[in-house]
């Protein structure tokens, strides 16, 4: 078997540009990402960081690739749990494509594919940890873009 990986897919009734804006705007991110704040200018090579509302750092990394409205790749490491930090860096790829999915939306939707993989087999605990959070974050993102409101209002606890 290859490296431990998760692949999550959702179809959203929106445009690639609006989805990109949602993923990269700190104010919007805080709404759907369970109270987590993002800090980055989302350019290739720039630092990237997730922070809890109390200011503590949750995760850090680097933008490996940023193609607006198409593709975002983040080199990602946990910072607040020693056992997860020890699991090392992971790579999270977000891909945005137009897709024929919702006939009731003119047959057009945006397909968001999130792939999160560990760099080594040692990274399994980190992939395990993010695998539980991603579906909630994605459901919220979809709900926010389609209805203007989030589905799940819980907060990430440290």
């Amino acid at each position, binding site marked *: *078997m*290859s490296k*431990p*990986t*998760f*692949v*999550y*897919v*959702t*179809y959203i009734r929106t445009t690639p540009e609006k989805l990109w804006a949602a993923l990269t705007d700190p104010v919007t991110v805080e709404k759907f990402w369970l109270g987590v704040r993002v800090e980055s200018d989302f350019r290739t090579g720039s630092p990237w960081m997730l922070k809890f509302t109390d200011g503590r750092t949750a995760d850090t990394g680097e933008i490996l690739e940023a193609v607006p409205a198409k593709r975002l790749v983040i080199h990602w490491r946990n910072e607040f749990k020693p056992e997860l930090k020890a699991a090392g860096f992971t790579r999270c790829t977000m891909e945005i494509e137009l897709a024929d999915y919702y006939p009731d939306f003119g047959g057009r939707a945006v397909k968001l*594919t999130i*792939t999160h993989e560990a760099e080594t087999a040692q990274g399994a605990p980190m992939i395990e940890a993010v695998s539980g959070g991603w*579906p*909630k974050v*994605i*459901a919220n993102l*979809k*709900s926010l873009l389609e209805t203007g409101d989030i*589905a*799940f209002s819980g907060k990430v606890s440290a």
Partner: protein
Amino acid sequence: MDLVFKALADASRRDLLDRLRADNGQTLNQLCAGVPGMTRQAVSKHLALLEEANLIATVKRGREKLHYLNPVPIHEIAERWIGKFERSRLDALSELKKALESGDE
């Protein structure tokens, strides 16, 4: 959402999802080897239905196609109904609190 329920209504397809849950990212060959009673065509057809319902995501790696369990649609179903029940329970509690507190005056 119809597609999700239709896809989940079949025991063989639920079994395929279970096996991806245990070992994510399998090829068609690997999945076929796990169900000796089913033809390759049948497994392939079930996988196509699961992918159409977005319960499976596929990734091409070289010449291989890897299948991954995608829990996002099931999570959306949970949010639609279970999330709603949680909200109504919170509403009921806040009504109770209001009623009890106004009774003190």
